[in-house]
């Protein structure tokens, strides 16, 4: 064993700091490392002061009350908000919680576009998707995508025109 260790040390002399944090006593390691038993006391600890609640916060039903601080970004609104409120009737272990949330996220995207338009802002979806960078660093792929787009559009147009022609000749 000693020999093996000695060899290992010599083989790694070129790596700065090799083995410096090796510690056979590091057992059990993180996350058990600093176990204090404190969690047996459950909620009997001095809680930080509570943040005043001024916006709607959806609370996991696996918690007895709000935590002392919470985020106030983007409170639930609209149809997506309704779906999110429904989702929070279910616990975190349930599909009934997560699937509606995923659905709400998709609905929220449409709401976002409507919101932008309402504020007189037309979102530049190509720019938001980073197409400048695609053009700069992945030009072949970008050209391919554009070509496919053009091909699909012209195909659809041709079909439409053809149908119209057929109809009018009837």
């Amino acid at each position, binding site marked *: 064993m000693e020999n093996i*260790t000695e060899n*290992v040390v010599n*083989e*790694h002399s070129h*790596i700065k*700091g*090799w*083995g*410096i*944090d*090796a510690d056979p006593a*590091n057992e059990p390691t*993180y*996350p058990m490392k*600093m176990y*204090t038993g*404190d*969690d047996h*006391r459950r909620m009997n*600890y*001095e*809680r*930080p*002061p509570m*943040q005043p609640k001024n916006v709607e916060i*959806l*609370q*996991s039903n*696996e918690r007895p009350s709000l*935590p*002392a*601080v*919470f*985020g106030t*970004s*983007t409170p*639930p609104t609209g149809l*997506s908000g309704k779906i*999110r409120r429904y989702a929070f009737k279910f616990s*975190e272990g349930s*599909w009934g919680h*997560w699937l509606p*949330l*995923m659905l*709400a*996220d*998709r609905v*929220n*995207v449409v*709401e*976002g*576009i409507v919101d*932008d338009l309402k504020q007189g802002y037309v*979102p530049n979806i190509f*720019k*938001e*998707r*980073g197409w400048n*960078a*695609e053009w700069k660093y992945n030009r072949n792929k970008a050209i391919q995508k554009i070509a496919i787009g053009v091909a699909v559009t012209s195909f659809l147009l041709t079909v439409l025109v053809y149908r119209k022609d057929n109809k009018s000749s009837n």
Partner: protein
Amino acid sequence: MVAMNYRGPFRVRADRNRPDPEILHPNDAIVRVTRSCICGSDLHLYHGLVPDTRVGMTFGHEFTGIVEEVGPGVKNLKPGDHVLVPFNIACGTCPFCRQELYGNCHESNAEATAVGGIFGYSHTAGGFDGGQAEYVRVPYADVGPTIIPPGMDLDDAVLLTDVVPTGYQAAEMAGIKTGDTVVVFGAGPIGIMAAKCAWLFGAGRVIIIDHIEYRLDFARTYAQCEAYNFKSLGDPVLFIKKTTDYFGADVCIDAVGCEAEGSTMQTITGRKLMLQSGAATALHWAINGVKKGGVVSIVGVYGPTGNLIPIGNVLNKGLTIRANQASVKRLLPRLIEHVQAGRLDPKGLITHRVPLEEVSDAYHIFSRKLDNCIKTILIPSTAAA
């Protein structure tokens, strides 16, 4: 203020008219951001994989900044202090924080109990707006934020908020014994840092596996390790067995998470149909490639619904699995020493420095792994003010 604004999967932009953050709790601080990063974790949000990611949110959990304002309860910080802010929002007094499980704080996430609050990481991590902005609200300002040591480069400091502690903790949780063969899946910033840190714990051999050549090349020099492309290995598990005399690696580290490539079945069920929370390909390989009685250390992020993994093999092989969000504050003192002594060189990972205004392109480049991107930092125009 200018801040990143999430508009839906693959759509983000920088808006100029976002409201400035305010002190909402006596222990809050407002910080003017000087650096913020885009993380592999942000990609899970960007790709629409994390439930309860709301349109209009600002992402960003890795940032440094100057304290502008503090609430009446804050004692350790004052305006003008330049701080690095751990990505975990932690109260410091709950039973979990007292065990230094700062990623599992019981007082910072209303919406979910599994994880503590994380800046700019969906409502499933607490609904806090993040640091890809000019200003950000920092709760529990006496607990997490750490004054940047004099002389430390800001680029090093900002990587101490997540990448360095996460990579280090991946190696630490692996319980590496001197001479161990360590296999790291994923050659992103986290995997590369994990490989580098495995040496500090005395690993005998470190192997990193990915499929992006420029990243493998980078890892070879930066982490001084072996690096292999799983596309050319064929079956990565068999490769690991063969290269360890058919024993298996002593430890495997998953630094990939839910957007893994490499298995059609996992990709279809996990990333296309979303029947599981992402593709568990790397975790699969880790479990099957590690030796009997070995350790699998997971820092790659997975969603809450569940994944297809060979749990039967975990049982039959008697594996130990350790996993968590990094507990950043816990590790900072040691990691600052490592950086100051030159044993770790975090800023060496940064390949892209981008103005905050160009956040759409920055996300696209990192997501598509264009222009040899490893790690991107965003710099607000107010950073130097």
